[in-house]
């Protein structure tokens, strides 16, 4: 890739010496220029024609913060998680010892761990199909340029902007025994007793799923809107002429047209479902539902690994590795499905 061949042309040096050309911004004078010249990267041509920076370390100077960030707070923590999972380190420090595979054997026999895994997997199984379909329907609804459609699009996006805590608070009050939903249902004589949305462990889990879907609708709607633009309008028109109703056109033209986007949304929401924490915390309380019955894997990691008093960072790390394995498995599965779908 000899992209910088122009550098061999009469450009004398990156910060050309001599008087500034008319119409260009003058160079900083003297000392400042020398300093700038030593820090600012400038490509020079080597004999082979490929551009090389005169000082090999200059590109690295520009890259260093990002590389350090990705290494120290991305790659290293993962490797360290694996290492810590073989110890009994405490979250607040102090002496620790290597315990081998003890954390993993403890994990396999820990019913709370399996409960958290079940909750997380269940979360993904229920949320993903709805998250793939509902925002697509919404995108189809707002796709047509009708008067006022911009307002609706922006309005549907607002739950995305609000923090999970704020929407969690809102849902908390909507679903409480005296909340709006129960009050209205009672007024309409649909139910007599309030539905225990926030005290029954199954209902908490389902409500949290509802919250996740509700908050993500707008985000994936925008995502699908972009994809819908690539579905040829002629197909819809032709199908309409042939007498196909909206439902048939949706299944036979829209869905195949945005298939790839649907696969991607499925992958993203699947990974997202395994990361759920705040929804459970807001609706099920800091215990994660009655007796911790609604805890997801991240919730469980925080409980067992990071509690200042009773936490065991080693065990938390082992559960973290399990969470990563689950995420990786899901990603690979999605990749495979996508490939099969394309091939």
């Amino acid at each position, binding site marked *: 890739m000899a*992209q*910088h061949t122009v*550098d061999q*042309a009469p*450009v004398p*040096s990156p*910060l050309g010496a001599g008087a500034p050309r008319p119409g260009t*911004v003058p160079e900083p004078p003297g000392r400042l220029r020398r300093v700038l010249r030593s820090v600012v990267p*400038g490509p020079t041509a080597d004999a082979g024609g490929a*551009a090389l920076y005169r000082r*090999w370390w*200059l*590109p*690295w100077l*520009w*890259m260093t*913060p*990002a590389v350090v*960030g*990705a290494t*120290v*707070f*991305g790659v290293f*923590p*993962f490797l360290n*998680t694996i290492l*810590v999972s073989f110890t009994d380190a405490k*979250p607040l*420090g102090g002496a620790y010892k290597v315990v081998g595979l003890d954390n993993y054997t403890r994990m396999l026999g820990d019913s709370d761990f399996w409960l958290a895994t079940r909750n997380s997997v269940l979360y993904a199984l229920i949320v993903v199909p709805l998250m793939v379909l509902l925002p697509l329907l919404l995108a189809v*609804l*707002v796709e047509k340029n*009708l008067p006022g459609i911009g307002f*609706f699009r922006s*309005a*549907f996006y*607002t*739950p995305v902007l*609000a*923090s999970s*805590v*704020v*929407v*969690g*608070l*809102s*849902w*908390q009050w909507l679903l*409480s025994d005296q909340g709006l939903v129960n009050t209205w249902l009672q*007024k309409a004589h649909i139910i007599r007793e309030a539905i225990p949305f926030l005290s029954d462990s199954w209902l908490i889990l389902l409500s949290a799923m509802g919250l996740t879907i*509700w908050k993500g609708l*707008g985000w994936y709607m925008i995502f699908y809107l972009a994809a819908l633009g690539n579905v040829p309008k002629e197909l819809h028109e032709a199908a309409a002429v042939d007498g196909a109703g909206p439902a048939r056109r949706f299944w036979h033209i829209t869905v195949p047209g945005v298939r790839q986007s649907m696969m991607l949304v499925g992958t993203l929401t699947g990974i997202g479902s*395994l990361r759920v924490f*705040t929804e459970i*915390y807001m609706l099920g309380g800091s215990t994660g539902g009655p007796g911790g019955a609604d805890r997801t894997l*991240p919730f469980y*990691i*925080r409980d067992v690994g990071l509690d200042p008093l009773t936490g065991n960072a080693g065990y938390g*790390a082992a559960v*973290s590795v399990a*969470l990563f394995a689950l995420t990786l498995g899901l990603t690979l599965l999605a990749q495979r499905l996508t490939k099969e779908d394309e091939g």
Partner: protein
Amino acid sequence: MTTAVERKRRLTPRWRDYGRPRELVVRYLLLVFVLFITVGPLVWQLLSSLKGPTEDVFGAGASLFPHHPTLRAYKEVFAQVPVWTYIRNSLFVAVISIASQLIFSTMAGYMLSKPGWKGRKLVWVVLMASMMFPFESIMVSLFLSIRDMGLVDNLVGVWLPGFVAAINVLIMRAAFLAVPREIEDAAMLDGAGEWKRFRYLYLPSAYGAILVVTINTFISAWDDFLWPLIVLRTEDHFTLTLGLSRLSSSSFGYDQRMVMAGSVISVIPVLVLFVITQRWFYKGVSSGAVKL
């Protein structure tokens, strides 16, 4: 059915240009229904925050609209809860996050968009790898690192792990790659050194991406909950989301109108930012730079 000619003749479209009446009615009914579901809970929060102490928020006697709208709950929440401290802490994290993300992802994204230096592939691999691990699966180790740095219960510890994100580097790189080669060549022939090309050509061309990085960073810092919950311990250091969640737990017995007022306060900055930037958000990155 209207023909294309007819449509062209009229500058302002008539209702029937948008489709059959029945279809239109159904569409708008559906739109209003979804509006009710998506925005309803947030609007209800806003309305309840405007209620006075004598009006019910919950229960059979509660009405949807406040009969005597008042800002009393807002005054109360500022008087009884250190909201200003929360806001200051959240702003502190958001502002330094935006600064570091912008500076470092611009630098790295620019270099990654340029060929001709050694180690580019390695950097690429490291950046991609760092995006593979969900935050929740490395947070135990991150906390241990923050602890070893002595940053527990410190806002710097909240900011540090996310001081630069690989995804933003990729966004900036894509924006710089979109700058047409012809323009850079022209600038080079005019004698512009690399710094000048970066400062006066690349940076202005990437304003769309800069905006995206800024907004994404602000929203994720402002709305973040789990990591501040892990790192912060004392109320003086709480961010707004932490303070709000603490308010809501009934053991403190705060008035719901107050908590709702707090929620509204926390949504406003993000909403304002969104409304202001919306019109620039979708504009082309280098539109108008190359004239054919």
